[in-house]
């Protein structure tokens, strides 16, 4: 999948900061105050980092709280470009994801904090498209744009911690009724991939244990049929290893997953009918991983650290 972005930024000349004890050279951006999460996108001319940033002051802590979305060229510390500023009634760090819209403009899927029940909507700069839950009391969170050629702006989200819902766009551009594509207990993440061998739903279930931003959990890959129903047994991507955060993208052979682990991060390359090739890279205090397969087949990985630095690296798919 090739994602386009109107920001043309070349990925070159990364700052020469390298983390020790890792096989991949990680390059740091300067601290980005308020950065809460990053995603990677590729525009016509390069890779950019999209980040959500809290910290814009409001008149009082209790007045609507803005969340800013910026893009930064992966090439280095260029001035961020503001994409969106979206107000929330309640302060906090919303769940969000980004993809490229039809016009090459970033499109956001975003939580709207409501108190305990949060809603979701998609912002494309012109419209705010609501994602309607199946039940009024369902709390929607963890919105993720479906990755792969047939993604087409479809969004998955978790309803409470029980269901993975798929929201697909109709011809009118609106999102239709949600479809339940997975159910379980303590579901904490989900990401749907359109891989060369078919739909694969990655899910992570929260397990009791010490958190690193999220509870630990095993990441499972569930093959889905064209009707989004289970088409095979779920396979643990990293075996029994518990991970905390992950991101994934589709490759020519299958898909690649980056996950934050207790010891650092792990990278899994999964091909059709082949066992996953897994690498472990020790490094503490990473969070918020992002991954993207860029033009030319390079796999870009990004991380956020508690000091709000963004770290990037790239490797062969």
């Amino acid at each position, binding site marked *: 999948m090739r994602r386009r972005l109107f920001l043309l930024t070349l990925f070159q000349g990364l700052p020469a900061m390298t983390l020790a004890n890792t096989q991949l050279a990680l390059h740091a951006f300067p601290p980005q105050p*308020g950065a*809460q999460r990053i995603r990677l996108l590729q525009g016509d001319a390069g890779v950019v980092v999209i980040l959500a940033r*809290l*910290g*814009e*002051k*409001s*008149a*009082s*802590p*209790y*007045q609507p*709280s803005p969340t800013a979305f910026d893009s930064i060229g992966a090439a280095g510390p260029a001035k961020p470009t503001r994409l969106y500023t979206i107000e929330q*009634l*309640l*302060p*906090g*760090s*919303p*769940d969000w994801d980004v993809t490229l819209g039809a016009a090459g403009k970033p499109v956001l899927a975003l*939580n*709207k*904090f*409501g*108190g*305990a*029940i*949060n*809603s*979701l*909507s998609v912002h494309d700069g012109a419209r705010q498209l*609501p*994602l*309607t*839950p199946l*039940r*009024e*009391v369902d*709390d929607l*969170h*963890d919105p993720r744009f479906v990755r792969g050629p047939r993604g087409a702006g479809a969004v998955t989200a978790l309803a*409470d*911690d029980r269901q993975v819902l798929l929201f697909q766009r109709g011809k009118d551009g609106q999102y239709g009724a949600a479809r339940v594509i997975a159910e379980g207990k*303590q579901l904490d993440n989900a990401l749907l991939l359109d891989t060369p061998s078919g739909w694969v739903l990655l899910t992570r279930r*929260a397990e*009791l*244990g*010490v*958190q690193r931003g999220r*509870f630990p959990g095993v990441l499972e890959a569930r093959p889905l049929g064209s009707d989004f129903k289970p088409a095979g047994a779920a396979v643990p991507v990293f075996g029994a290893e518990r991970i905390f955060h992950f991101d994934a993208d589709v490759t020519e052979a299958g898909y690649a997953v980056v996950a934050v682990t207790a010891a650092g991060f792990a990278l899994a390359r999964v091909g059709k009918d082949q066992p996953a090739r897994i690498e472990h890279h020790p490094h503490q205090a990473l969070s918020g991983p992002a991954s993207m397969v860029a033009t030319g087949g390079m796999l870009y990985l990004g991380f956020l650290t508690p000091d709000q630095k963004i770290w990037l690296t790239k490797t062969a798919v």
Partner: protein
Amino acid sequence: MGNKNKRKAAQDAADGVPDGQIGEDEMRCIESLIVPRLTALGIIDGAISGGNPAHWTTVQLGGATVRATTAPPDFPGVTWDGSQAGVAPMERTISRAVVGTFNVGATLNSPRMHVELEVFNLTALVSDLPIAVAGTTRKGYAGFIAGNITRVSATTEPAADKVWNQLVWSAGAADAQANVRAVTVAVPGDQTVTVTLGTPAIGQLQQQVVLHICAWPRLEVIELTFSQGHVINNDTAADFDRLWQHGRAPNPPQCYTRNTAMTLAATLRVVRAPTDPENVVVRGTATIGGTAMTWTSAQIAVAPNAATVAFAAVAASAPLPNQVGFHQGAQINWEMSDPNGGWLSIGTTIHNVYVTLGNPIVADRVYWTLLHYSCVNGAGSAAAGAFTNAAFGTYTGRNLVRKRDNKPMTYWDPSSVARVNGNTMALLGSDSRRHLPGDQNGLPAPGGEEVAVGHCGSWAESFVDMLKIHGVANAFKINIKNQFPMARPAPPVTAAIMADAGFLVAAWNFAPPVAISGTTLTHRQWVTCTTGVHAPGQSNPTPPPAFYNHFVVWCTGTNTLYDPSYGNRFAGATVAAVLQAWEMHSISGLFADGAPPNAGYATAAVPAPARRLIFRYTNNNNELV
């Protein structure tokens, strides 16, 4: 005159005997020549005399020989009594085969001469040590023998001082009777005590006893394994094990349902090894909530080389009190049997024991914090209704701390609510920092106090889960949403309805004062309608003043609405009255997204049942009416 006559004359002169007359000596000599007689009678072997030549003693061993002396010497014709023929003509044999006093007499033309021979016997030697082992060995335990002294008693025939005084002992000190010795047995080891009667010359009788002094084992409880109760989860980090371990600090709490018996097994370290294999019994006793209970082991074999021994799982002799409770610092006093049939204290273990109303409904979610507060606040409860209300006392102080790390648990600290904290697990597992004064940017403050944060959904669920820990399943999470505009939304539910309108919490200032209107919004939020006094929430005096929705808990058992986020409880004659009470107390108006006027509505002006809020079960979406 010959020499003989000269000596005679000289003797007569010395004796004053006139010359030519016969002196007394001469007369006796003459008489002896004429009448043989017995001159002496004595025992020449096999007996000893205490100085009296007519009284002899001996031991019951072989025989003794009596010899008669006659004048003229060896004159035949001695008449004997009380004896048997001896080896020599003038000797007789006395048997020593029988205990007794034997009189041996002899006569020869004179009054009977006699000697008396007493025969003694030494028949036994015994110790008062309590345990008979093979042969004469007796066993006792160092440290468990009164005064560290055992008394060894010799049995003689006759049992009399005259015999006992002849006993020769190899050990011990004199005691009240001469046939008893006091032997010190303070340390483990074998001692042989010998008593001897007789002499090498006459023969010796000997008895001995082996004093087998052993070390009694001493045990120490090093690990207890509790069972039959409930696993407590350490506030999402991990399950507590069911162990108490020596030297571990702190040891985890334990949890049982009321009126059930605590079951435990123990591992004990052998602090002092026994010298012989021994069997002991171990017991623990405790009084928990006024109920005395005991755990008693079966016989536990302790080998001399054992490092540890096991006490198999056993239930307490009595169940826990039949009511909810938290028994902090409950002591189990451990004892082991001693060799004298008593009990030897081997230490105390201390435990924190939670007692629930019923069995947890979700067994793997007995979170420590919820368990602790509910057991403390619900202590003494024995019925679900009373317990539910008492347990809610957990929230009314709005000052909970997470037991795992004593961090405050806050309701909607503005800086800290990230993502979804919509369940108990997320609330108890969260780690954030408290908002700093003046920090308005909504970011966790690096210098802020570490807190656990949750929103109303997680706080409400925490109370539901708290009750489930106690087996109470009649509490339900309720979502509150306004129904502005006035008409209730018709299906299908839209996202817009979900999030475009909400309510103003606690006191807002309306300028001018809000009109009594249940139909229209009249003010501009943040401009003519501004925040006033916040409703204090859990560990947060100023939670956000406006929400699109809110979660509370409805309990069908008590017909009460509980609002854990704010620590408030609402009861009433009817459900509608309860909901109205919440509304009247908790909000001061409504708001909607969009252009002003976007705030208003005086709740106080709208009498029941014309509520503007919908209370809906989250499990089935049904409305609570």
